[in-house]
């Protein structure tokens, strides 16, 4: 988050000294500079920095939503709000459930969307492919639609008498009542082989008010439909990132590998994929950050149901504050979510930082080229 130091800004020019470099053309630049950035600073400050500080205060207070949170009858309650969502009780159970749901969501969406977008990008990047533009458009289009519109569409597609179940019936199966089905996929899979309750070690121990067995339930059928939706809408965006990266992959190397008799599969894994590493990391971390922010879909569609299995921390924070008037709790959840997302952002910056090539890697590279040279 540290900005690259702008060298021009550091040498402070004494007011009395004559402007040296560009003569009179730089007159009044400082004033104009501040004037130009002032709208941005004012708006970002008022609607981003101040709100965050105010919410931080609310998360340590007992404000109930009446009047101003800064008025004198609002009390500082320390970590009470944070305690209520971590140390037992209904609020803790809700928070644990929301974290569980979102964790499963992340666990499935991130790998699926990354793999699918890479796959699509490789498909539509083929030089020989006809109608490339059409296919790219088709795959990207879901990305431009709003989350509300796509959720409405999804509620219809996965409704009990909807197209997806009609398709399943056409193949002779029977689809579930997607958005009404709270059973976790892992539990359902275990039940199909006759295991309906976990061993004591899983059912007796709890974390955040939820037994380990429940943590391992997997995403509910309803959540799974939302997972498919996320993959459907984001794969196009990430496909574009991969297409851009694929254009920079040197064709010479691929050609050389072709000459050496590597098949398409080997060429992809050994030549193309390693060169896509930076983009791969970007896509994965953008996915990780985005997936913890699930709100619109839940607000529009399921409202956390069935049986709270599509409740996410973002939506829980909203309902705690705006519906239940537990503003302190809502703000506390938001801050915990903030920490989770910031952790992933920092992780991304750390992974993608510019770093010198390590000695070990140089050696590995040299020995590899040496071996290759010896072999030919």
């Amino acid at each position, binding site marked *: 988050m540290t900005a690259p130091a702008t060298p021009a*800004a550091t040498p402070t020019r004494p007011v009395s000294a004559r402007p040296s470099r560009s003569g009179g053309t730089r007159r009044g630049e*400082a004033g104009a500079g501040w004037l130009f950035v002032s709208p941005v600073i004012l708006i970002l400050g008022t609607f981003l920095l101040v709100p965050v500080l105010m919410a931080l205060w609310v998360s340590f207070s007992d404000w109930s939503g009446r009047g101003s949170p800064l008025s004198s009858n609002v009390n500082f309650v320390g970590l009470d709000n944070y305690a209520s969502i971590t140390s037992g009780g209904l609020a803790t159970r809700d928070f644990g459930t929301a974290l569980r749901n979102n964790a499963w969501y992340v666990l499935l969406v991130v790998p699926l969307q990354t793999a699918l977008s890479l796959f699509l990008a490789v498909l539509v990047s083929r030089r020989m492919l006809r109608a490339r533009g059409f296919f790219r458009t088709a795959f990207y289009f879901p990305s431009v639609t709003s989350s509300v519109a796509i959720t409405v569409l999804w509620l219809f597609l996965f409704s009990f008498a909807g197209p997806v179940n009609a398709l399943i019936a056409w193949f002779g199966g029977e689809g579930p009542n997607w958005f009404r089905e709270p059973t976790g996929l892992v539990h359902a899979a275990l039940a199909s082989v006759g295991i309906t309750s976990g061993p004591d070690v899983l059912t007796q121990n709890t974390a955040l008010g939820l037994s380990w067995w429940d943590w391992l339930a997997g995403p509910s059928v309803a959540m799974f439909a939302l997972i498919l939706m996320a993959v459907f809408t984001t794969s196009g965006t990430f496909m574009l990132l991969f297409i851009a990266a694929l254009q920079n992959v040197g064709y010479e190397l691929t050609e050389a590998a072709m000459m050496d008799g590597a098949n398409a599969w080997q060429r992809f894994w050994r030549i193309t994929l390693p060169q896509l590493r930076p983009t791969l990391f970007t896509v994965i971390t953008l996915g990780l950050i985005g997936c913890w922010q699930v709100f619109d879909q839940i607000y529009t569609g399921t409202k956390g149901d069935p049986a709270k299995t599509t409740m996410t921390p973002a939506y829980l924070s909203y309902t705690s504050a705006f519906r239940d008037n537990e503003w302190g709790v809502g703000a506390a959840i938001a801050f915990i979510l903030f920490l989770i997302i910031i952790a992933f952002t920092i992780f991304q910056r750390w992974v993608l930082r510019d770093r010198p090539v390590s000695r070990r890697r140089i050696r590995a590279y040299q020995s590899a080229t040496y071996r290759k040279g010896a072999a030919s």
Partner: protein
Amino acid sequence: MTDTTLAQAETLAADPASVPPPRRRRRTLGGVSGQILLYAMIALLALVYIYPFLVQVATSFKTEQEAASNPISLLPQTFSIAAYERLFLNSDFPLWFANSAVVTILVTLGRVFFVSLAGYALARLHFRGRGVVFALVVGVMAVPTVVLLIPKFLVLNQIGIYDSYTGMVLPLLVDAAGVFIMKNFFESIPTSVEEQARIDGAGTFRVFWSIVLPMARPALITIIILSFQGSWNELSHFIVATQSPELTTLTKGVASLASGQLSQGTQYPLKLAAAAIMTIPVAVLFFIFQKRIMNTSEGAVKG
């Protein structure tokens, strides 16, 4: 499905250019069937991506009974525009649309101006504290929007613009990512033209307005796409910024439709019609700037 595949295979066979070069004659047979397989797969995938939207439009013209009894067909047996009539003549839908349009236009205009102004200052003008301002902008980009729901409401409420157009538009007027994009762009164009204008005596704002901004067209288009799409599709900000029905935007209104306001029964034709109409403006924008969006990656990242 089979039709598409066959059609693809036929065009393939008819076109000599797509037959692998004779050098690899040994693999020609496998190559052709491989190509057919490839086209079959990609066509199937495209169908999966397009079909939902086709069935959406089709269903919006069906009667409610037919939407339930024959959800998968693309041709309504009895063509009905009842859903659209209901939306436009007998609901708040036109109001929602107007609100969304007003907000989107104001936000897009405002963002283009403020963001390029700030980007220019950060890229070109020398002033004390520039590094700090830029650090602030970059830092702010990392703040996720969903954790700002409660905070934003608190501030809007505190300064007395909750439930007003001002409260809807003002916080969206500036976008840190846009400042970042514009700064990068201005740094990439040469300074010589500006220097010349300055020597001729033009003031800073004049240089910016009549010399630099016209040169920045490609970057401005990126900002327009991002702002338009972003504010048209925005939901969470309007949830926490407004409560009165007169200020409901499309996203908020359609979300309330989805959860069953206005309706008895499922009302799928109505809901799908509403969702289809709200998709049209961004779809039009997308098709206008399609080439740009598909060729640049920065213009495409959704927040």
